[in-house]
């Protein structure tokens, strides 16, 4: 049995020292719950690998912007030969690259970044969902939380905060870094003149955060295990995308059928946050953003309703 219970010190240790301070409100337990969830995620080396892979897209944008800016400073006035296609001014060439790769600090650039980064976020969340919340239900850790002076809502908010931190570390935060980098590389005025872009980035991040957090909490609470969770997310974000494309682009159904693709809906609202027109979005023939907002709002509400019912009935006899 090794170390024995410290019987000699019983009176002192059991009464500790009297607590004279004020207890924090139950809301203060939200961050500790999130911290426990994040700790359990980041203590797994697999997630560091996926996170670093996710950051590769950010690094591509970051160094892409930097290299093109650097190349611009190095470019002379003399035209350069482009293989057998003729000659071109290097500045025009760089501008062409910028436009093509969306590395020009425009709203398109950030939309493009969110779109690419979002794929990685979805994969990571599908893998992380069971650890973040599913395991609490699967292995019965929930009583540790629910017997403490906090409500079920605090528990859900804590877990939601962990997911939100995770999403924003991979999307909003890198996008803000790209915004700041463009300001530093091009001109400081950009940061003030295009402040609307910063707000757009925050708005897009918020849409992703709310939708994915609620959806992940609900699906992880329902399915609990990693493999079914991945299958569900694949269905939601991959199969529904294919289906909507087939219905709208192939069978020429109403563009509203694109609304079954939740990822497309987040992109539509994100684009609206960044001030982009519907015409700039590919594939074309899209429904208006407010219809997408309505669908995502409905799905989120549905997920919340399920969560409330599920958490209430968590002790149902199996």
């Amino acid at each position, binding site marked *: 049995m090794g170390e*024995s*219970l410290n019987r000699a010190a019983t009176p002192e240790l059991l009464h500790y020292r*009297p607590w004279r301070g004020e207890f924090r409100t139950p809301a203060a337990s939200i961050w500790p719950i999130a911290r426990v969830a994040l700790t*359990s995620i980041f203590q797994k080396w697999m997630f560091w690998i996926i996170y670093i892979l996710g950051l590769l897209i950010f690094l591509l944008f970051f160094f892409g912007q930097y290299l093109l800016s650097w190349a611009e400073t190095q470019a002379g006035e003399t035209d350069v030969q482009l293989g057998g296609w003729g000659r071109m001014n290097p500045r025009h060439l760089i501008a062409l690259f910028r436009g093509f790769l969306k590395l020009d600090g425009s709203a398109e650039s950030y939309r493009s970044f969110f779109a690419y980064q979002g794929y990685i976020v979805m994969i990571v969340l599908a893998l992380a969902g069971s650890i973040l919340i599913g395991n609490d239900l699967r292995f019965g850790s*929930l009583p*540790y*939380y629910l017997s*403490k*002076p906090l409500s079920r809502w605090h528990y859900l908010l804590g877990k939601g905060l962990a997911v939100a931190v995770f999403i924003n570390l991979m999307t909003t935060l890198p996008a803000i870094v790209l915004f700041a980098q463009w300001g530093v590389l091009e001109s400081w005025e950009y940061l003030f003149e295009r402040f609307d872009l910063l707000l757009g980035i925050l708005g897009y991040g918020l849409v992703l955060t709310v939708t994915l957090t609620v959806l992940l909490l609900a699906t992880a609470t329902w399915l609990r295990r990693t493999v079914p969770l991945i299958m569900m997310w694949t269905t939601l974000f991959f199969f529904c995308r294919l289906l909507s494309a087939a219905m709208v682009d192939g069978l020429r159904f109403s563009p509203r059928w694109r609304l079954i693709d939740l990822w497309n809906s987040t992109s539509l609202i994100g684009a609206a946050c960044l001030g982009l027109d519907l015409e700039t979005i590919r594939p074309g023939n899209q429904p208006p953003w407010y219809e997408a907002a309505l669908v995502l709002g409905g799905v989120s509400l549905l997920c919340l309703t399920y969560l409330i019912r599920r958490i209430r009935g968590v002790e149902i006899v199996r």
Partner: protein
Amino acid sequence: MPDLLDSPDSGRGDRPLTAISVSRDPKGSAPPALPFGSRLTEEAAALPLLLCQRVSKWYGPVIGVNQVTLELRSGITGLVGSNGAGKSTLMRLITGQLRPDLGSIEIRGHDAWSTSARRHVGYCPELDSFYEEMSGRQFVEAMARLYGYPRREALDRAAFALERVGMAGRAERRVRGYSKGMRQRIKLAQALLHDPELMVLDEPLSGIDPVGRDEFVRLFGDLASMGKCLLISSHELEELEKLTDHLAIMAHGRIAAVGTVAQIRDRLDNHPLLIRIDVKRSSPGENDSENDERRRLAAGLLKLNDVVGVELLDARPEDAVDPVLVRARNPQRFFQELTRLVLEEWYEIARLETLDDSTSAVLGYLLSGRSA
């Protein structure tokens, strides 16, 4: 069916089936411990620590807890019953994890569902699932933060609690590598963090080696002697007997009986107490039926009102005693009359032993109509 469940009250829907209910304020009762962050007024201290009134809980069509009434003040109470009897559901109701569908549960006058009630309660769940990648200290510290302590205080309390359960030296190791006993200690540490008045412990002794059990039994005794109230669910009846003789017995979602083992045993009228009396032989080795003292004793016993049967057990010639098995109701009155009989007739009694008043025997009678 168990005697107490078949009592005349059992058919009435308007009364909780608390066949034997004895309010507890046990031996050596120390003043109630003060919870952190609050000073108990005299009025609050006078309130029962735990008061369940006609509590029922359904899981869909299944009833988990049925019209349970229970009042506890301080000391250790064992919560026993077979699997599925409703022990864990009752514990979850008391710790505010579940809300009763009917009735009320109060902890020091606060609704058990409220956060203020949970500050008085420490809960040690049966399952030992933790975050396997965390260290024991990280886990206990995280739990301390959930009670609302600031970081520094949470760290101190985690250190104290780990020290108290003998895990201070092993707290830095990952939970993944912990044995069952170490996990039990960590669970107990997180329940002790806020020095609660009421501790609800679900199977705290399972999986612990004998040395560890003794340590836990001592710890629980220490806590009780400090005026705390412990509600301990356990299938380890022998260990539970070392801790307390005060039991709440659950069957089919109901409290079948509450009280000391002796009090509950006294009320089991359908199961007369079994007593073995060894009568000393006048001349060892002899087995003369004519001069057999025990036959005279048996005859005398049969004249007593509470004796329902006497059996002469086979005695081995080499033994110096002749055993008699007596079945008697109302043990308290029986033993008074037996004492009088022995003194009047000058019987030489070598040994007197009650055979079925142990916790397991009482539980067996209550739950299945026979000794466990």
